[in-house]
């Protein structure tokens, strides 16, 4: 199976500071891939490169079959993105946000209408569709941002710390959404610093100080480090690094 994300020796420097130090990994279609690491480890940097928001310093990177140096615009047609900072329009309503992004991705007005309805129904949020986003609670905003990101049925969805600052129940609901999307064939690339969420992923990589120190399924990693939880795996790695 051809990987949907291929990264080989990716380096990203900001001046003299090396944020990403020679990363190599691949993600396969339909996977839920967890990109883990502590805050400041370099996860957001990588995700921005994969999304075509930032250019790599060196290394080979391809997403959805396209080279990130030469065809970043083509990549963008095939991906969805949910940033760490909430970035839908607070002064527009839910429907208006969906309309806008749907239109940008080339969906017809009918498609936009149908998919919005379906997505909102799934969230059981249809009645609030004309509410301005500013008035909606945090947890719901995040679920909505996710829905917008997958509305155009992209091959890959990039989620940067999607469950930050949200209660455990909402987090669980969010992951249910992620599972459903993965079952539909979408590849999920999610970064998080919550180690318990790592258990939900098919495979995970753990970044420490800009380097990937571990890359495998949660099961295998726990066996490898002889511990019971992903959190412990991480602690062992972090200690070794410093």
């Amino acid at each position, binding site marked *: 199976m051809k990987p949907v994300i291929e990264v080989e020796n990716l380096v990203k420097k900001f001046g003299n500071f090396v944020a990403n130090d020679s990363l190599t990994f691949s993600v396969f279609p339909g996977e839920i891939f967890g990109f883990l690491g502590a805050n400041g480890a370099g996860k957001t940097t990588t995700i921005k490169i994969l999304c075509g928001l930032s*250019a790599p310093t060196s290394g080979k990177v391809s997403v959805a079959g396209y080279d990130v140096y030469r065809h970043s615009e083509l990549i*963008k047609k095939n991906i969805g993105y949910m940033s760490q*900072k909430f*970035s839908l*329009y607070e002064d527009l309503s839910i429907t*208006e946000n969906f309309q806008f*992004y749907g239109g940008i991705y080339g969906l017809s007005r009918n498609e936009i209408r149908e998919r919005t309805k379906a997505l909102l129904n799934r969230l059981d949020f249809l009645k609030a569709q004309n509410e301005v986003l500013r008035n909606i609670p945090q947890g719901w905003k995040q679920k909505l941002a996710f829905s917008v990101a997958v509305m155009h049925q992209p091959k890959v969805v990039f989620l940067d710390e999607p469950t930050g600052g949200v209660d455990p129940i909402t987090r669980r609901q969010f992951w249910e959404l992620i599972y459903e999307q993965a079952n539909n064939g979408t590849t999920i690339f999610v970064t998080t610093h919550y180690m318990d969420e790592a258990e939900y992923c098919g495979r995970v990589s753990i970044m420490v100080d800009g380097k990937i120190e571990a890359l495998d399924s949660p099961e295998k990693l726990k066996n490898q480090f002889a511990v019971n939880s992903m959190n412990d795996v991480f602690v062992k790695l972090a200690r070794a690094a410093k």
Partner: protein
Amino acid sequence: MRTVIFILQKEFRQIFRDKIMLPIIFIVPVVQLLILSYTATFEIKNTRIVIVDQDHSQASRELVFHFESSSFFKVVARQQNYQQASEWLQNGDADQLIVIEADFEKKIKTNQPAKVLLVTDAINGSAASLMNAYAQQVIQGFNKNLLAERVPFQNRPIQIKVEPLFWYNPKLNYITYMVPGILVLLVTIIGFFLSGMNIVKEKEMGTIEQINVTPIKKWQFITGKLLPFWLIALFDLVFGLGIAKVVFNIPFLGSFPLLMGVAAVYLLVVLAMGLLVSNLSDTMQQSMFISWFFLVIFILMSGLFTPIESMPEWAQWFNKINPIAYFITINRMIMLKGSGFSDFSESFYVLSAYAILILMLAVNRYKKVKA
């Protein structure tokens, strides 16, 4: 193309939903026009003068009468001597002193030059020049009367009479001069300031990242951002023209479509510049400061307040890249003198080229991908 429509839809929704925007589009122009027109004046009326008449003769009283009846002057005091009078200048209670020397009448009668001393508070240099010019005019009027009286004795009329005529603004109304300029200022602020701030707002809020991740093309995004303000600025121009006509009765001698055509091109330049500024700014405060910096310099040099012709060479060269200077000149020409396209075609072509250049530059500089 469809994409642009979606973007425009979103932009217009946001603009009209922004509680601050609507007053800015409708109320601020009105207020600005009204207030600026009355405050932005270099007109000097009612110069406050103190008279020191050291002669106390019929001739000196006659001269004082001339000053009193002049609409340009207001006699605020009469003093006995220079010392007392200069207190008034020091206190800021008067602008000018008129000192008539003792022997004034005697000298006139014996055909010797009689002197009048004009002492002006010249802190405001321009105002001082004007005040002086007006005072000279009053004294010339007095002179003419004297000569006319003398003439029967000598049988010689004044030989060279100078007759000034004032076209286009015969009443020398300063507001007529300023209002067209203020209109330009108005639309420039909307086009430059607001459009730039709008883009930086997205940067500051983070929504620009979401935009950059989509397949949206640069030109689509930029069109979506600039077009609404282009339309709003043009609308405000028409709106402002209406107010100018109704409230101030400003003449409009030239062609309305011509003015709108020039405005349309001018706004492209201004919008593109706003875009450039937004590229340089990360926060709204920065954007505001940088915009303000350039705007103030351009406006001061544009001939809005002081004539371009009075500026030194280097300033005139600078104005070749000052779009505001172009539009202010052309606007005044069309409105106040009825000039036609052929009168300023060269400037128009330069402005158009400028628009294309800056738009290309701004679009080029906008990066969806950070290096």
